[in-house]
């Protein structure tokens, strides 16, 4: 029983990481109908930049963990803006339906190579900002960092939701997702909104990176499978629903930890991905989605 509970807790923490990255996919999809397939690499870069800031590997530490978070998010935002600027804007301008897929993947590979050159190919250890000694909840071991992951993920998504609903700039983002031409007529610079959504999406991923890094190994390859699985989550949950991202993330996270323990770690990803295939077959728009992938 304790073991089951413990697996559930780990699954929830992992699932919320998937949810935040999936949420990032949704942000750019909403404004531009495009996705950043380098979302996992944005996460990886965030984690590694964070590591350089808080550890000794590059002559630091320069900042403590908490002060590092905003710096990493600014870095993520700039990185996302660069992706939009180089990879996506030209494709949107040329009305190329698939150009952005190629270019965001190409940029992802480049970012991974750059990271391998700066931080090496081996996995590094990210110092935990809080005590790694687990405490007990109903007899199950829980790490404080896992709790922080869940809180951080929820806080991030709520903050974006609040921004979209309450501020006039957030409303401009929602208007652009509704109808970009009409948004332009309102005086909204929709090109800027798309750049902003890429910046926000990568900042979110970078944030997820520093949240997850203390719980896993940190290195140039850490983002690829996270990004891919979060993509599965975004599809399962629906590309238009924040709630879908959370539910999809939890389904995949929990099914992964349970399968990893009760069946075999070798198969831990299978149930979630089978679910993805089922969702795609039965409800292509996702569990909570309104529309399937629309054209650019």
């Amino acid at each position: 029983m304790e073991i089951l509970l413990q697996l559930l807790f780990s699954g929830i923490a992992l699932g919320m990481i998937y949810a935040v990255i999936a949420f990032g996919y949704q942000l750019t999809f909403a404004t531009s109908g495009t996705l950043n397939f380098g979302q996992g690499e944005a996460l990886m870069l965030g984690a590694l930049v964070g590591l350089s800031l808080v550890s000794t590997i590059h002559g630091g530490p320069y900042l403590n963990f908490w002060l590092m978070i905003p710096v990493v998010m600014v870095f993520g935002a700039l990185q996302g803006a660069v992706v939009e600027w180089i990879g996506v804007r030209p494709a949107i301008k040329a009305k190329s339906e698939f150009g952005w897929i190629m270019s965001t993947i190409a940029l992802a590979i480049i970012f991974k190579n750059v990271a391998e050159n700066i931080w090496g190919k081996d996995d590094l250890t990210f110092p935990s900002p809080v005590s790694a000694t687990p405490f007990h909840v109903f007899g199950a071991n829980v790490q404080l960092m896992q709790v922080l992951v869940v809180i951080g993920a929820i806080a991030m998504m709520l903050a974006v939701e609040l921004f979209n609903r309450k501020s006039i700039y957030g409303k401009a983002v929602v208007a652009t997702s509704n109808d970009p031409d009409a948004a332009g007529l309102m005086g909204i610079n929709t090109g800027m909104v798309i750049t902003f959504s890429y910046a926000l999406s990568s900042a979110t991923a970078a944030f997820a990176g520093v949240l997850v890094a203390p719980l896993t190994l940190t290195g140039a390859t850490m983002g690829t499978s996270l990004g891919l699985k979060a993509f599965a989550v975004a599809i399962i949950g629906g590309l238009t629903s924040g709630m879908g991202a959370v539910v999809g993330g939890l389904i995949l996270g929990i099914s992964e930890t349970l399968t990893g323990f009760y069946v075999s770690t070798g198969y831990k990803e299978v149930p979630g991905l089978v679910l993805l295939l089922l969702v795609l077959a039965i409800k292509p728009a996702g569990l909570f989605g309104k529309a399937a992938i629309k054209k650019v």
Partner: protein
Amino acid sequence: MLSISNLHAAYGKVEVLHGISLEVPKGKVVTLIGSNGAGKTTTMRAISGMIKPVSGTVMLGGKDITGLDSHRISRAGLAHSPEGRRVFSTMSVNDNLMLGAFPRLTGSRPKGDVNADLEKAMELFPRLKERRTQLAGTLSGGEQQMLAMARAVMLNPDVILLDEPSMGLAPILVDEVFRIIRNLKERGVTMLLVEQFAAAALNVADHGYVLENGRIAVSGPAEKLRDDPAVKAAYLGG
């Protein structure tokens, strides 16, 4: 106020407007009439930046706005209530109206009193008043049309382009739309109006232009056009 000269516009390689010139003086209502496909909507799109004109010039209050992005033209003071309403369907009536004032709320146009203008818009468009928190997508067609017009008014613009505000509305609502246009005119709002109800449009307008196949065929004071036999035969039902 708005001055268009020798405007050419195209979709892809197909030229649709072949050199349009028209004037919308300050405080006046000018109507553009013409049959389906004549290029009325295209003219409005080329003015407001939804499409880029091929050549020609568009001047707004002495400022050259030709070929600017639509958000710049909006910030320069031109509001466009587009064909097909295009309200933000997942957002509330209030939010739609606030977005109409986006350039004012973000410092690219004089702010004035946005909240007071919101209340004024509610007086002018009473149907919106009791639906302030309703999502725009759940409004009836007529209500959406009122919202699209009110949203344009919220910019406090120098000129408003209205593209078929009565499209698809029941007769009683068409009357209401024209009542509102008249009301706006009395407040001194400058408007360029495209309407399928040419007779009604010429009644409220000061000046009219008749567009045929992307060219201005006839133009003149509205009362003159109302009595023009050719215009009567073609657009006013004999």
